[in-house]
């Protein structure tokens, strides 16, 4: 589905991404005000995390979609059109975005924890808006499926499109899961006493959701190592790292008390 303006097509994916950028800014400024954080500081962190997230999401997409040989040949020819083509991988955006947020916090002479309460719940909401774009564009796929809620695409978006065949509404399911996660984060932010507890909840929660949903995505294009898809390995890695850091910091706290 495209909006045609003067014969040029405007993809809903890009429109939703642009909407997501504006919503992220608006929501984070609003939540920042509720937590007595200056609008200017929020914007610095927003801009830095967005820039890094965009780069990270594209880097991971390119790394998964192109072989090193093909990529190197394109770069040698001076053909950088691959940057503008194709999609993005959210997990790459999330990891790089956190680095960007940390740098943004440094620029405002604060810690990342200072912004945790304001900004974290915004991420799954904005992610949902992006997934609406995915649903309308047909990317992020879905396994062949003719049951309740099946989505049917009648034009080919890329080589892997099941034209005219029902696919699992993976984007809709992920939107619902993200909104539930956002609600949990908003409520948990008020109750959390420990540093980065909210971030921990988000990373583990989203990684778990992503791990399960990958079984229904049918994303053969993105590659599989052994039993699991690339995104499932990244999700398991994220859960492992978060739990490891949490265990270590709990151990250090108990050791200090003793």
């Amino acid at each position: 589905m495209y909006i045609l303006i003067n014969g040029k097509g405007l993809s809903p994916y890009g429109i939703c991404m642009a909407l997501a950028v504006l919503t992220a800014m608006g929501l984070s400024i609003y939540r920042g005000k509720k937590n007595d954080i200056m609008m200017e500081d929020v914007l610095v962190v927003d801009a830095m995390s967005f820039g890094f997230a965009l780069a990270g999401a594209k880097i991971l997409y390119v790394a998964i979609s192109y072989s090193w040989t093909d990529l190197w040949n394109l770069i040698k020819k001076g053909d950088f059109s691959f940057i503008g083509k194709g999609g993005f991988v959210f997990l790459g955006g999330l990891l790089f975005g956190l680095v960007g947020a940390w740098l943004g916090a440094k620029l405002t002479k604060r810690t990342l924890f200072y912004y945790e309460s304001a900004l974290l719940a915004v991420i799954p909401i904005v992610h949902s808006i992006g997934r609406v774009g995915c649903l309308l564009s047909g990317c992020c796929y879905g396994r062949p499926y003719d049951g309740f809620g099946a989505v049917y695409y009648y034009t080919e978006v890329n080589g892997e499109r099941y034209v005219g065949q029902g696919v699992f509404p993976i984007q809709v399911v992920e939107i619902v899961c993200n909104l539930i996660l956002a609600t949990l984060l908003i409520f948990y932010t008020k109750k959390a006493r420990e540093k980065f507890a909210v971030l921990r909840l988000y990373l583990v929660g989203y990684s778990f959701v992503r791990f399960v949903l990958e079984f229904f995505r049918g994303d053969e294009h993105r590659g599989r190592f052994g039993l699991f898809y690339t995104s499932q390995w990244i999700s398991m890695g994220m859960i492992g790292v978060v739990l490891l850091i949490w265990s270590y910091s709990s151990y250090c706290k108990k050791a200090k008390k003793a």
Partner: protein
Amino acid sequence: MGIGALVLGLVGLIVVLFPFLPTTLGIILGIIGIVLGALGRKDPKGKGLATAGLVLGIIAVVFGVLWLIACNMAASTISSIF
């Protein structure tokens, strides 16, 4: 910082709107414009310029994202349909 924000925000917007220049560069300049604009607003002397740079940076980023993703995706798909 205010002047830097204004210049980068403006250049970023021009780069994004001009079809023969790389949109990615416009987005990067817009992001730097937002950062400098937001930090510059804390200084009362350069607040006006910093605000202008901030707004231009935001417009550059939003248009850049719209153009980079929306039109490139559409171009490759429409060419495959026709």
